[in-house]
């Protein structure tokens, strides 16, 4: 399925030639501005596209409408304050955002969190993955015109958010991780409740499969649309489910083990297609897989404390550390440089969506305008994660 740039250009050229025959307007390209506030751009992304008829000739995403200056703000805050701030980078999977930063701090300090804390961290990370993907599955349907999946997605997402809130106190921004462990243990009855909700998640995945996978319109709108060949994706730094949907078997949970993932047996789903449909399909499978991981880990949750011995005031010794993890949206990493103060000296935040979206100028060449919306939806980015 791999398409080289030459083939793509040839494709555009061929269709341009056809357009020339049909209408004598081939030179009068139209510039269309989509966004920054457009219902189909998932936030404040702006895409300026040059159109030839209905076909995109060139696309230039304009980002920065959500730029909040994270990397500067971290230099002015202490470690606990940074932990709570970075929740808001990728606001759908906030808990997963905290983990790599905390790991970087723990790595420089030479601290390890107790096993129970590690397990609970893993469970909460997977729960936020489920919450993120359920929203995606709903949104994806909505962008091709099916409204029902949105309602289902939001309904089932609430169940997961309830769990996260019951444990951490925040629906969106848990601020539950501490360097050396967790803020507190989970409340009584939480595990039983989580098991019950995971059954609902499995059910929900089946519903989505029934609703969308057999749907001819959905298939027509997504199959073969927006193909990212694996090697092109790698060059652009596309990661996570987007890359796995291009047939690259690469998952940091397995390939650069962290948290409790080495102790879990899970499958890394890939799809050779590389198109919008593959990205949808891979995420659907990963939702199920995440629910399986949660159930598996809850069965083996060790008892004990959730916090290691750490000084009351966190001072990270001089050093630097690069930690990256597999977030729901892709590879998320923090390059933390410390100089021994109560706050980091420099934090480089490598967010997944930034690289995932940077492929758009390449990807959008030669697609139709309606397909542009599908492609944006299937790439699944969070604006805060792009702009930081």
């Amino acid at each position, binding site marked *: 399925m791999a398409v080289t740039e030459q083939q793509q250009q040839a494709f555009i050229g061929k269709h341009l030639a056809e357009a020339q025959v049909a209408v004598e307007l081939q030179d009068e390209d139209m510039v269309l501005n989509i966004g*920054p506030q457009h219902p189909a751009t998932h936030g*404040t992304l702006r895409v300026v596209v040059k159109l030839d008829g209905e076909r995109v000739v060139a696309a230039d995403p304009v980002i920065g*409408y*959500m730029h*909040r200056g994270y990397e500067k*703000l971290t230099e002015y805050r202490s470690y606990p304050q940074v932990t709570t701030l970075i929740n808001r980078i990728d606001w759908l999977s906030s808990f997963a955002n905290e983990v790599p930063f905390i790991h970087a701090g723990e790595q420089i300090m030479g601290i390890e969190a107790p096993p129970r804390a590690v397990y609970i961290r893993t469970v909460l990370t997977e729960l936020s993955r489920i919450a993120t993907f359920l*929203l995606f599955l709903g949104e994806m349907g909505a962008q091709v015109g099916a409204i029902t999946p949105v*309602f289902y997605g939001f309904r089932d997402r609430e169940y997961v958010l309830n769990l996260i809130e019951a444990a951490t106190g925040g629906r969106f*921004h848990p601020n539950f991780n501490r360097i050396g462990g967790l803020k507190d243990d989970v409340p009584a009855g939480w595990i039983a409740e989580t098991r019950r909700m995971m059954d609902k998640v499995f059910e929900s995945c089946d519903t989505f499969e029934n609703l969308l996978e057999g749907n001819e319109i959905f298939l027509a709108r997504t199959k073969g649309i927006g193909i990212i060949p694996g090697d092109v994706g790698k060059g652009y730094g596309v990661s996570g489910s987007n890359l796995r949907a291009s047939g690259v078997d690469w998952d940091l949970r397995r390939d650069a083990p962290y948290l409790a993932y080495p102790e879990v047996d899970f499958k890394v789903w890939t799809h050779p297609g590389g198109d919008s449909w593959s990205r949808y399909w891979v995420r659907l499978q990963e939702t199920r897989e995440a629910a399986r991981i949660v159930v598996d880990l809850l069965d083996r949750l060790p008892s004990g404390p959730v916090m290691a011995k750490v000084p009351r005031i966190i001072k990270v010794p001089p050093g630097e550390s690069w930690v990256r993890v597999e977030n729901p949206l892709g590879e998320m990493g923090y390059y933390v440089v410390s100089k021994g103060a109560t706050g980091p000296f420099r934090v480089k935040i490598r967010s997944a969506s930034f690289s995932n979206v940077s492929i758009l100028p390449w990807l959008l060449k030669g697609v139709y305008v309606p397909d542009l919306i599908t492609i944006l939806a299937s790439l699944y980015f969070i*604006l805060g994660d792009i702009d930081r």
Partner: protein
Amino acid sequence: MGLVEQGKIPKPLTWLMNYSRKYSLWMYQWGLACCAIEMGAALASPRYDMMRLGVIPFPASPRQADLIVVSGTLTDKMAPALKRLYEQMPDPKYVISMGSCANCGGPYWDSYSVTKGVDQIIPVDVYIPGCPPRPEALLQGVVLLQERIQNEEMGPRWRGEPIIVGQPGAHDHLPETAVAVSSA
């Protein structure tokens, strides 16, 4: 319709019109950040279902909207777009500012690229606290706005005079310079 602008509508009719207006708010969604997802949950999630309150969330353009909900971080790059779209809305128009970022800059109060509060750009009728506020908190904000609409004088609203709901010194706790800097 000079009567409405002059405020010469009889009381019962005012009551009736306000009552009708408050239950058909066309809401323009200005979803920006985390709060946008909570707003989405309030609108699309069956658990909250904001349309029960007479809020109609899908106007085709700001020119058909009565209410704009600014949910999330407003950056300096985005502010002109918000201002322009707000100006396109017909009077009477209402603004709900949702979440700490929209209220005051929130977690990014010291950032170089964030506008410290929507009320520096457009007048705001209801402030919803939270980071992000729960969907129920947004529902409560809408209910509060509906109460205000029920009890309001129509004349000034119709004339498009901005009703300063917050006092002029809404940012009193910040020194003048901080406000000036943030808008620079």
